[in-house]
């Protein structure tokens, strides 16, 4: 058992007792069970060996009570001993009483050990755990230190054999033989254990960000809705990728989370999935708003995404099982052989070692393989899915060659061409990452020797518990002298039960203890785990109560600690539910800042207000808290504090406002309370954090036109543009560009931006910025270009078109919406269109119609309209997108009005080319448009009518529209208040009225009266169309009359 316990068992690194503990996991449980079985069966199988007295007894603290021992025992006050004794007259089993419920057991034979385990009943597992934890190398105890488990060659068995044969006949030889047998038995058991645990271990290989990302990439290329796809979509919840390849935020990365995904299988609901280093599992719905997310696991953990999806989706499983993988199997075995050959020379002597290394080797080969095939699987037969995918990929490529229609999916093909390169990269770095894994393991082992701080802190906590007020304060002060920003110390305090004591101290009357305790809590609550623990222990309630204390220091500290703790949702809710928001708002109420004279008292009040603002800032991340702050009258107080000059006051105040301005009521209040002026003023601050919060507050508030105007009036546009030069601070840049984007929605602001040469600066930011910045930059450019034609030229001259088009290949949906909009706005100018066309931008736009996000679809379709209008030879261009026309017609099935309107607009443009019109007619555009005719949405009506008008130009489409019942609903459009709808509708009706049947339908629907009114419109196009339509109806009537009187 020595080898297995030393290597296979998983020990924790940190524990209370100082010794490592066995982790509570499946592998260890298996190990313990085997151990129990082995020991219990031992005396009956090998009675002689069972009676062998151990060299040194096994000693451990038992979980059993003396009363649970039944059998041949002598009981005494201080414990219990067995009647059976060894040759030195020591009892073979001896239970020593340490305290009320604290017993220590000494056992000297396996027989007694077996009895004890039998007596343990349902505490067996716990007892076995205790035995092994206290005796990490039982063989050494049983047979003596000479048999301690050593790594590498071990001759002890041989030595013992020699010894036994040398002294044959002797009495001690007999004992030695027994010993030998016992040793062999334990080794046999060890082997068995080892084999089991290796089998177990080989199933769990830890996931790495690379593996997960590869898998996601691969799965993404097989996501879609048509027949060949395995799932509908797979998306990151968080798009941003950290340097280490993780998408999860850092504070979750410490828990091993790699990324969060939203997966939609073909046959089921959307799932929210976490990829953790320990495997993939379904979570309780992580959203991009991390704070309100639920990271908890729901259901089982799977070793990788494919197995998770296979388990959750039948279709997925069927799809991957239906592929073949003959080709790759062969290669794998070859490689395995090569590997073994290479290592054959230095194989160790001991069979067990050999066995082990072999298995390790196999595992390694498999690992290697899996890395190469960009997928993680362990036993070879489970590799099927991986290889299937590779084949599928190849197949896909082939298909592409066969059916050139697929060309449209530029994105997908891009990815495919990229994959070989990626593959190489990963196989190269594979050895490196393996090393990394090992090194982390090693570190963990080192950690099992706890740092000295741990013991010191444990001692101090003991004094906290045991001392009176004076001793408590001394201990608190001593504790504060540790480096509390260090995680070891933070966790040590928690692990030794210090948090409970600290929180309990808050409920005492001793101010000094409370202050000392809060000072520590304030520091250590920077740690996420500690925050959770504080909330769990009910610390928030007490701290909320302290907010009303008379001592101002206490108030400050309490508010600051709340500010740290309330970084997660549950804590914020707790604060609110205990009336904390009201109390925190009350803290803000200090004498107007800048009032003379400044006394120490009033300074203290300002300090309290600052701490209150800090806490509110943390709390204001929850919607309900925002409302609570408003209801508690926080807004005017915040407005007053906003006049302060100190940055450390302004930052939390502006931070709170910034958070809250996601609410309409706050935006209104910020405007009406005159806070915009202060926000703008603080944009000039030297402090970048403050500038950032101001800019982001303006970003959020500038949704409203009045606010945008105020920002301009107070001269806020200039500093914003100046902030664009701070390209090293990405957060600030993101906020500033966001503010510019929103402000650019007002034409007056756009002209100011023009004067400030903002376009050039913004174009300069199109390269090498994180997505958060890019979204805003592109949004701003889009607004500028859309509002003012000369900006389109400016963007071109600044060289902005190529990077914009380039961004169309991205995956961030928010970014894509903005990029398509900007490209669309630029495309309205012929020169720009030339560049876009040259860069193949229209094709990229077109491929975005396939994006799952409806906003992206709509925005891409809108952008396509000006492209077609302005491109030279647009018809030919559109035709060159194979499958493109079918795609856009199929979008008419969408259920999103914006998508429908945009697609109708695009179709209206496409239909200008007769040949294309013929193609889309073949794709069934007429009945689909007709089906939409009953809509009540004016925007859709307008573009739908446009599209219908255009589509009438081909073949018997006019008749077909009539047959599909599109005419009568169209007539109703004339009642709409929107003149644009009237114009488009009148044109459509004019076109339709060339078919006599349609004329009859129109007439019956009462079209004449409104049309006659519209003839009097000031809009020439409308006049003409209306008149034309009436003309057609009239002609039909005349023809009828003529026919009648012939």
């Amino acid at each position, binding site marked *: 058992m020595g080898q297995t316990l030393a290597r296979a068992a998983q020990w924790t690194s940190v524990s209370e007792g100082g010794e490592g503990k066995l982790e509570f996991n499946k592998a260890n449980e298996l190990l313990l069970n085997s151990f129990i079985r082995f020991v219990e069966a031992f005396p009956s199988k090998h009675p002689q060996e069972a009676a062998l007295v151990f060299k040194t007894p096994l000693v451990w603290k038992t979980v059993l009570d003396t009363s649970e021992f039944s059998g041949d025992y002598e009981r005494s006050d201080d414990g219990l001993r067995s009647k059976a004794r060894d040759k030195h007259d020591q009892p073979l089993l001896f239970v020593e009483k340490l305290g009320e419920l604290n017993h220590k057991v000494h056992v000297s034979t396996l027989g007694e050990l077996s009895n004890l385990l039998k007596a343990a009943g349902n505490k067996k597992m716990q007892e076995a755990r205790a035995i092994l934890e206290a005796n990490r190398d039982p063989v050494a105890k049983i047979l003596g230190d000479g048999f301690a488990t050593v790594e590498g060659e071990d001759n002890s068995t041989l030595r013992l054999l020699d010894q036994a044969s040398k002294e044959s006949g002797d009495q001690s030889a007999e004992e030695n033989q027994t010993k030998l047998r016992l040793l062999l038995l334990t080794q046999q058991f060890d082997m068995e254990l080892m084999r089991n645990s290796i089998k177990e271990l080989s199933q769990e290989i830890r996931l790495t960000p690379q593996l997960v990302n590869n898998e996601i990439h691969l799965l993404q290329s097989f996501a879609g809705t048509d027949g060949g796809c395995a799932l509908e979509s797979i998306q990151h919840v968080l798009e941003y990728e950290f340097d280490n390849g993780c998408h999860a935020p850092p504070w979750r990365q410490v828990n091993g989370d790699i990324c969060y995904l939203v997966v939609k299988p073909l046959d089921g609901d959307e799932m929210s999935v976490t990829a953790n280093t320990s495997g993939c599992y379904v979570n309780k719905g992580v959203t991009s708003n991390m704070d309100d997310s639920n990271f908890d696991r729901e259901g089982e953990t799977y070793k990788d995404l494919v197995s998770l999806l296979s388990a959750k989706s039948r279709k997925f499983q069927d799809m991957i099982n239906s592929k073949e993988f003959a080709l790759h199997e062969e290669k794998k075995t070859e490689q395995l052989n090569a590997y073994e050959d290479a290592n054959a020379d230095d194989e160790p002597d001991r069979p067990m070692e050999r066995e082990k290394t072999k298995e390790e080797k196999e595992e390694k080969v498999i690992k290697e393989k899996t890395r190469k095939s960009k997928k993680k699987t362990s036993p070879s037969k489970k590799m099927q899915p991986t290889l299937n995918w590779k084949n599928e990929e190849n197949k896909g490529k082939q298909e592409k060659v066969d059916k050139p229609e697929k060309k449209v999916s530029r994105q997908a093909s891009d990815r495919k061409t990229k994959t070989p390169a990626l593959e190489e990269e990963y196989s190269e770095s594979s050895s490196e990452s393996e090393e990394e894994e090992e090194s982390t393991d090693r570190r963990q082992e080192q950690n099992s020797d706890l740092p000295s701080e741990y013991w010191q802190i444990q001692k101090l906590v003991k*004094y906290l518990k045991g001392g009176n007020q*004076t*001793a408590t304060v001394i201990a608190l002060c001593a504790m504060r002298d540790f480096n509390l920003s260090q995680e070891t110390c933070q966790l040590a305090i928690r692990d030794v039960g210090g948090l409970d004591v600290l929180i309990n101290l808050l409920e005492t009357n001793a101010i000094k203890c409370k202050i000392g305790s809060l000072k520590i809590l304030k520091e250590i609550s920077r740690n996420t785990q500690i925050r959770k623990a504080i909330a769990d222990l009910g610390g928030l309630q007490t701290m909320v109560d302290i907010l009303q204390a008379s001592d101002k220091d206490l108030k400050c500290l309490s508010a600051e600690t709340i500010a740290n703790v309330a970084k997660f949702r549950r804590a914020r809710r707790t604060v609110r539910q205990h009336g904390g928001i009201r109390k925190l708002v009350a803290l803000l109420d200090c004498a107007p800042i800048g009032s003379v004279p400044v006394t120490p008292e009033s300074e203290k009040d300002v300090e309290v207000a600052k701490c209150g603002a800090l806490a509110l800032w943390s709390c204001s991340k929850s919607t309900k808290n925002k409302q609570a702050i408003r209801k508690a009258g926080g807004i005017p107080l915040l407005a007053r504090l906003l006049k302060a000059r100190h940055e450390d006051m302004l930052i939390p105040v502006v931070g709170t406002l910034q958070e809250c301005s996601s609410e309409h009521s706050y935006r209104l209040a910020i405007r009406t309370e005159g806070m915009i002026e202060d926000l703008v003023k603080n944009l000039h601050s030297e402090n970048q954090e403050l500038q950032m919060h101001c800019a982001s507050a303006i970003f959020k508030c500038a949704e409203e036109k009045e606010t945008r105007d105020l920002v301009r009036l107070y001269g806020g546009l200039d500093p914003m543009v100046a902030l664009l030069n701070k390209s090293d601070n990405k957060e600030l840049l993101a906020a500033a560009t966001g503010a510019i984007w929103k402000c650019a929605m007002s034409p007056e602001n756009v002209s100011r931006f023009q004067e400030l040469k903002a376009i050039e600066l913004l174009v300069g930011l199109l390269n090498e910025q994180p997505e958060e910045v890019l979204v805003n930059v592109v949004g701003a450019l889009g607004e500028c270009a859309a509002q003012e034609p000369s900006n389109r030229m400016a963007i071109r001259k600044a060289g902005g078109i190529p990077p914009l088009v380039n961004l169309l290949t991205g995956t961030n949906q928010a970014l894509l919406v903005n990029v398509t909009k900007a490209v669309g706005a630029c495309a309205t100018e012929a020169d720009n269109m030339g560049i876009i066309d040259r860069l193949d931008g229209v094709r990229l736009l077109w491929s975005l119609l396939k994006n799952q996000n409806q906003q992206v679809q709509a925005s891409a379709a809108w952008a396509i309209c000006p492209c077609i209008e302005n491109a030279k030879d647009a018809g030919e261009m559109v035709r060159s997108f194979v499958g493109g026309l079918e795609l856009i017609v199929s979008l008419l099935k969408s259920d999103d009005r914006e998508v429908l309107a945009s697609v109708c607009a695009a179709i209206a443009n496409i239909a200008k080319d007769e040949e294309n019109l013929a193609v889309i007619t073949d794709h069934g555009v007429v009945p689909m448009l007709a089906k939409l005719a009953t809509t009540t949405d004016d925007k859709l009506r307008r573009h739908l009518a446009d599209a219908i008008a255009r589509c009438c130009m081909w073949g018997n489409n006019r008749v077909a529209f009539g047959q599909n019942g599109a005419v009568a609903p169209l007539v109703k459009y004339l009642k709409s208040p929107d003149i644009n709808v009237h114009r488009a509708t009148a044109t459509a009706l004019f076109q339709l009225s060339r078919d006599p049947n349609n004329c009859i339908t129109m007439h019956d629907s009462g079209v004449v009266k409104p049309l006659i009114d519209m003839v009097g419109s000031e809009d020439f196009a409308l006049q003409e169309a209306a008149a034309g339509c009436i003309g057609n109806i009239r002609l039909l009537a005349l023809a009828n009359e003529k026919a009648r009187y012939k």
Partner: protein
Amino acid sequence: MAPSLHFSKEEVDALTNMFKDLGKANPSRPEKLERTQVREQLHVQFGVTDDIILDRIVRVFDLDSDNYVNLSEWLQGLSVFLKGTYEEKKQFCFKVYDLNDDGFITREEIFNLLKSSMTKLQTEEDPDEGIKELLEITIKRMDADKDGKISRDDFSEAVDADILYLEHFGSCLPEPKDVEAFLKVAATYPPYRATYY
């Protein structure tokens, strides 16, 4: 009367009345209070329970060390005790903890002060052990000049860094609410009349 009292005229009167009233208990020496009397007042009014600290506070009150507290000492002592400035309080606390008035707080003095601070420790362990440990930690922290004892400057420096060190070796200053309560009690004493007959 010492010029630096922090009391208003009314408060001085009230405290004087209180002093005189307490002095009546000892007709032979009405102008002075015995140390035990002051001790009792401190104990009753402020709930100071630690015997050593109580004794020390009274000794600090007793500026001329004649074992009695006269009116001037009473007023000056209370002025610091109840309403002292930060500096005064620092000095006061140091004096209280410096048991033998030699200008240093030594290991032995701290040990004496902390003797009773460990109450609920597990029985099997020597409570002195814990006290010694705390003592060492504290000395190490406060002894800036590394001479093994805490001088006036050491103490002042530590307190400046963290106000929690002010009453580090035992509570010897009243809580704000007790101050008010005490002054109210003082105001209830009847005006003193020098002669009854």
